[in-house]
């Protein structure tokens, strides 16, 4: 056990401050949300990406500002990895002044610059194909990136989109955060076959990454994205992750063993162990920073919205 841990620790490549900082920021942001919920200071629902923070950080490092990102219900990390605007996101979730979408969209419906999330699973893939086709014409080399979960492969729209993307050579990057569960249902009882097989069915390039190391994920995905860009074609990047927290809030029915397994795969203690000083410094920074963000946003007045 200790040997295995050590090995994993040894495995990690040195991490850039900027990356680790972002992973930690997302972690603290999500934790803050759950705390606010517990205290009754947040309303509605939210889906935190605890345990999956490294994915958007790795992916975003490969994205161009002109790429268009489609996010889903579990999108805070996708946003925070790309934009240095935690205040605006929290304000959106809390319906306060300075909110990204005036509090109308909330946690699941964000549109900011070239980032758009929506709460209906699978729906955004065909839309992303449309955006990718426009990019192909007007900004060659740019792509549309859509994050989806493993469970979202249940939706027919995913296949309609993959087929069209491949037929029309749309520069589309589908990032699959495969956390082996959808809400409460294990992927094994939701998905027959594999994501790799689903991509292959359409002749779409696919690569699966099992690492938690941001550099490794990035290095493994870089050639895939390069082909999407240079050959103008869809690609599927599947990343194995473990959901650390509940689906939304307080709705985790997994066994303690399952939870322990998820925790064992968490990047957080591994990075902490591998780079203790750097980690401690950045963690303290981000913890304090997110705390200030929360304090700042909490006292803002409610958002205003001019109904069309």
């Amino acid at each position, binding site marked *: 056990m200790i040997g295995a841990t050590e090995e994993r620790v040894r495995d990690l490549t040195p991490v850039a401050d900027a990356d680790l900082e972002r992973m930690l920021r997302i972690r603290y942001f999500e934790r803050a949300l759950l705390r606010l919920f517990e205290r009754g200071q947040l*309303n*509605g*629902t939210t889906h935190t990406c605890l345990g999956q923070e490294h994915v958007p950080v790795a992916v975003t490092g490969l994205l161009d500002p002109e790429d268009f990102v489609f996010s889903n219900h579990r999108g805070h990390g996708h946003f925070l990895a790309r934009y240095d605007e935690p205040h605006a996101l929290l304000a959106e979730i*809390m*319906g306060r002044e300075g*909110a990204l979408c*005036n*509090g*109308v*969209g*909330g*946690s*699941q*419906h964000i549109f900011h610059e070239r980032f758009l999330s*929506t*709460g*209906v*699973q*699978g729906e955004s893939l065909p839309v992303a194909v449309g955006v990718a086709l426009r990019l192909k014409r007007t900004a060659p080399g740019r792509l549309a990136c859509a994050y989806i979960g493993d*469970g*979202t*492969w*249940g*939706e*027919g729209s995913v296949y309609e989109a993959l087929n069209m993307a491949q037929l029309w050579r749309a520069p589309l990057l589908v990032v699959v955060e495969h956390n082996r569960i*959808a*809400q*409460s*249902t294990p992927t094994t*009882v*939701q*998905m027959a076959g594999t994501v790799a097989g689903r991509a292959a069915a359409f002749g779409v390039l696919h690569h699966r990454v099992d690492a938690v190391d941001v550099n490794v994920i990035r290095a493994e995905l870089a050639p895939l994205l390069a082909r999407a860009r240079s050959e103008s074609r869809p690609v599927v990047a599947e990343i194995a992750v473990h959901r650390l927290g509940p689906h939304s809030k307080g*709705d985790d*029915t997994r066994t303690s063993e399952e939870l322990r397994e998820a925790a064992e795969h968490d990047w957080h203690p591994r990075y902490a162990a591998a780079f203790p000083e750097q980690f401690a410094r950045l963690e303290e920074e981000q913890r304090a920073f997110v705390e200030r963000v929360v304090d700042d946003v909490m006292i803002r007045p*409610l*958002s205003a*919205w001019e*109904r*069309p």
Partner: protein
Amino acid sequence: MRVAEHLNEALHTLLAADPSVHVLGEDITDPYGGAFKITKGLSTRFGDRVVSTPLSEGGIVGVGAGLALAGDRAIVEIMFGDFAALAFDQLLNFASKSTAMYGRQVPIPLIVRCPTGGRRGYGPTHSQSPQKHFIGMPGLALYELSPFHDAHALLTDMFARQAPCVLFEDKVLYTRRICRDGVVDDLFRFELTGGWARVYADGDLPPDCVIIAPGGLADRALEAMRELLIEHEITCVLLVPGRLYPLEVAPVLDLLRSAGTVCVAEDGTAGGTWGAEVARLLHPALWDTLSGPIRLVSGADSVIPTAPHLEREVIVQADTIRKAVLA
């Protein structure tokens, strides 16, 4: 007992009584028991007859229709009624149509359950009340849960039609107490007649106004009625139909004829509303007794914002109903 538990109990009773009943839906098996816990305990008790499905709203309604076509009875839970849009084709072009398009009646006992409504902060794609879009599909009946109707009786009714039905269930209503034995609260009583719940403070006087509303509106309608009675001395009767479409107005026509003002309230956005359908049925029948056109209350013509202070502006409140009655 809360409405959610009551509905859960009704499902238990239904499955226990009839081994041909199957339930499909996302995350509906134990220990999770569904996003709103309506199916809790079912999979533990009835095993394979209760199935957690992939995220495939169109597909699972199709599977339910197939089971029903082949001789079973199927209940499909759509996690949020908003996603019933993904099953629109299966409902319009297969399930409802197949009951008649083969030149004879084909039994398709299928119930699609849809949690609806806002007031939970779930945002624009998880808060809708899409009832109106399903009105007027030949062969499809629409029901809505209420605090007054017995859920088991509604489900039994639906299966007895041998044709697909959609049951709408307000998400806030889930958390409210059911009303039994004719008692609503200190002020109001109710009785069930011909599928309608009639809710009243004093049963003898002809009311100043009749409010018609689906079950999800009951809380707000009652609050409005209370204020109208106490502060404005206006008596209202609330009528809640268990079946929204096709709507049988005959059992309540006498009552409606006794009131000069009729108001229909519903969730769901403005335009092409259920209320317009109710008015279509009632205007000819009440033309001589109405003092003015039937008043229609609905949500605003707007997306439903996530933030509660903004959501409040677009969703029907007790006050929206009160003002419509006073107008």
